[in-house]
């Protein structure tokens, strides 16, 4: 059996890459070990019949505005999004709250409830940097990463550019301290970073922080996150591509220095006349499926050093008979209607300390909570009048002194603790309202999708040494590998974790260039 391209892993990146190649007229086979496609785009009845829960990703911030959505005509393939009017509501321990809006003036008015000066600063940031972010961020996400020298060469020529470079070098906390005076405003914007797994006191992340201050969106995939994966699968199949589930790849066959196909666990051999593309995280792809003997030792060293040690999530999937009503809504009604409610204490230091606790294997006892009810915006995800909720609490993968096994002992107690924290903000969340619950500790997350090593939901830490031109490795961030005919396309590549299909799109572009395929999307 032979195809032009064999893609290992039917995560959303693999499917997107396959869809581009299939529509270019290539014969494409996608192989998926599990019985479902989508990887982190997964929706299942985790609690009770009719309650559809998003097991990993909940929101697809960039997908609807991405070239992938347009090029692959995903709407025609059944992928639709709804947009909550109120985005993220940060609730503070004193029950005041700050709701995020996509409209800059409305957002500034909200900030002004805490600090008039910060509202002015926000408006000025929008005026000064809004267009810069708009013009560059998406473009840079949906193209191979720029070398650091190329970025700095342009910016270092002007005072304004040098300010951006200085901000880029700083930590999120430093940048927020420079820009804002209100502790609540800082907590709110810092949460915009930490919910994505960015450490609050990590140097070299200021630019992303600026983006997260200025841009807000929360598109929810109708039918659940898994609907995106199904739409992508349809896009592959519409152009003659083949997607096989329950087909585990054992190894990538290398002849000389060229990938020529794959061997499945059931013994089948499938040839790839042009290339193999792996959507599987680096250690499994290169140390497991390719083998060190086929790789240069410096590359092997980089693979071995790829790290996933950041914060994970302790997740509760809940079936509810009624939505939560927050005390904070008495003073700011839209909090109840926001895409998510975020409870991260009242001081910047709370998030910093939580991350430090997590690094030492201690699950935070204070609230580090994000709660989302997709059914407020897409009722199709639960029976009529009922709701699903996903509750995230920042957590470590390893618990001192037991390691990951420690979750067996702790998970039920911690789930009760997290529910208690939540209900202290939303008192109507009682056992009567909770119809069903599934606990998903960080080890469950990894079991569900072992690309999420150590339960890190962004497929490898999003730290400066593993972002942009350094993701996954310096010199190998263009989706190519040292093995000819072997490419990478997962969340471990630029632009990183999350659901945006950027790596799948970008890998397809590089492959099209290398094999002189029809770049029909340009």
């Amino acid at each position, binding site marked *: 059996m032979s195809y032009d391209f064999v893609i290992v892993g039917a995560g959303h990146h693999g499917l997107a890459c396959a869809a581009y190649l299939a529509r270019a007229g290539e014969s494409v086979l996608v192989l998926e070990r599990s019985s479902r496609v989508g990887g982190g785009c997964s929706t299942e009845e985790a609690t009770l019949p009719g309650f559809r829960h998003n097991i990993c990703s909940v929101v697809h911030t960039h997908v609807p505005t991405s070239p992938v959505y347009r090029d692959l005509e995903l709407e025609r393939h059944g992928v639709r999004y709804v947009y909550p009017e109120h985005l993220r509501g940060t609730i503070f321990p004193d029950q005041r709250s700050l709701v995020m809006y996509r409209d800059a003036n409305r957002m500034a008015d909200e900030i002004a409830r805490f600090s008039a000066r910060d509202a002015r600063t926000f408006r000025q940031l929008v005026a000064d940097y809004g267009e810069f972010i708009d013009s560059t961020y998406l473009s840079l996400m949906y*193209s191979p990463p720029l070398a650091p020298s190329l970025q700095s060469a342009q910016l270092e020529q002007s005072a304004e550019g040098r300010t951006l470079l200085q901000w880029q070098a700083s930590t999120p906390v430093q940048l927020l301290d420079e820009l804002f005076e209100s502790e609540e405003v800082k907590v709110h914007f810092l949460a915009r970073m930490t919910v994505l797994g960015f450490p609050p006191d990590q140097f070299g992340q200021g630019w992303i922080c600026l983006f997260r201050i200025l841009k807000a969106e929360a598109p929810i995939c109708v039918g659940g996150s898994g609907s995106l994966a199904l739409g992508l699968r349809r896009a592959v199949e519409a152009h003659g591509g083949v997607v096989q589930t329950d087909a585990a790849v054992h190894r990538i066959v290398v002849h000389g220095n060229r990938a020529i196909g794959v061997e499945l666990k059931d013994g089948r051999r499938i040839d790839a006349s042009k290339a193999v593309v792996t959507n599987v995280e680096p250690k499994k792809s290169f140390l497991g499926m390719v083998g060190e003997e086929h790789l240069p030792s410096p590359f092997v060293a980089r693979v071995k050093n790829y790290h996933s040690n950041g914060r994970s999530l302790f997740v509760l999937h809940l079936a509810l008979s009624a939505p939560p009503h927050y005390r904070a809504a008495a003073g700011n009604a839209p909090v109840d209607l926001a895409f998510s409610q975020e409870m991260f204490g009242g001081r910047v230091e709370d998030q910093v300390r939580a991350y430090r606790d997590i690094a030492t294997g201690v699950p935070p006892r204070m609230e580090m909570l994000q709660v989302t009810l997709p059914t407020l915006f897409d009722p199709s995800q639960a029976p009529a009048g009922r709701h699903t909720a996903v509750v995230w609490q920042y957590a470590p993968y390893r618990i001192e002194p037991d390691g990951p096994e420690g979750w067996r002992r702790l998970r039920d107690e911690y789930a009760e603790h997290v529910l208690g924290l939540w209900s202290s903000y939303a008192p109507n969340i009682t056992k009567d309202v909770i119809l069903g619950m599934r606990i998903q500790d960080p080890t469950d997350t990894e079991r569900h999708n072992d690309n999420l090593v150590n339960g890190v939901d962004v497929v490898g830490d999003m730290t400066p040494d593993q972002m942009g031109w350094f993701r996954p490795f310096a010199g190998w961030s263009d989706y190519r590998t040292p093995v000819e005919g072997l490419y990478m396309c997962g969340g471990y590549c630029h632009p990183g974790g999350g659901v945006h299909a950027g790596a799948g799109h970008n890998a397809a572009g590089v492959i099209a260039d290398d094999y002189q395929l029809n770049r029909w999307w340009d």
Partner: protein
Amino acid sequence: MPERETRFVVNASPAEVWKFVRDVHSLCSCIPGVEKVTLLDERTADLTVKEKVGVVPLIVKLTARIDAEDPPHYLHAVATADHLTMEIDVGLKPDGTRTELLGLIRVKGEGPLRPVVNSLFDKRADERAAQFAEQLERRFGAVGAVGAVGAVGAEVVAETTPEELVRERGWLAQVGEWLRRLWQRLQARSASPGK
């Protein structure tokens, strides 16, 4: 490749406008963002262009060369920088005592900055063309914009009757035909032995 077409009626004769278009310094004085012009020869100039995106200035150093001209009707120039190539066609058409100026600009981002260049051009081209028109108005007096600026193929022509539109397109077709012939001549030249 992103492209934009723009048309102006200039209150001057084709000969006057041609003189202006052909003088790199005077032309660049009307192009927004051009900060420095160094003439290398009669047909070639180095330009430094500053394009502000919000408060962040992006500075692009271009070399522009006129590689074909048919005075006082048509000019074709190519400007190249590290990450982009810009092709510019300028056509002049008599309109009574005035001159209609057609500009067609195609920008092709190249290399790793290609998506950023293309995105910026898409966002800025209309605004910059309008500013160029304002500058021309200051230089030549009253100027009427014949057509709104837009992506080619989605051209909006203001206050133009269907008959006029047909004539406009006929003129565009003439420019296109001229370009085709020029291209054929250049190809024939490069294919001739001994050249």
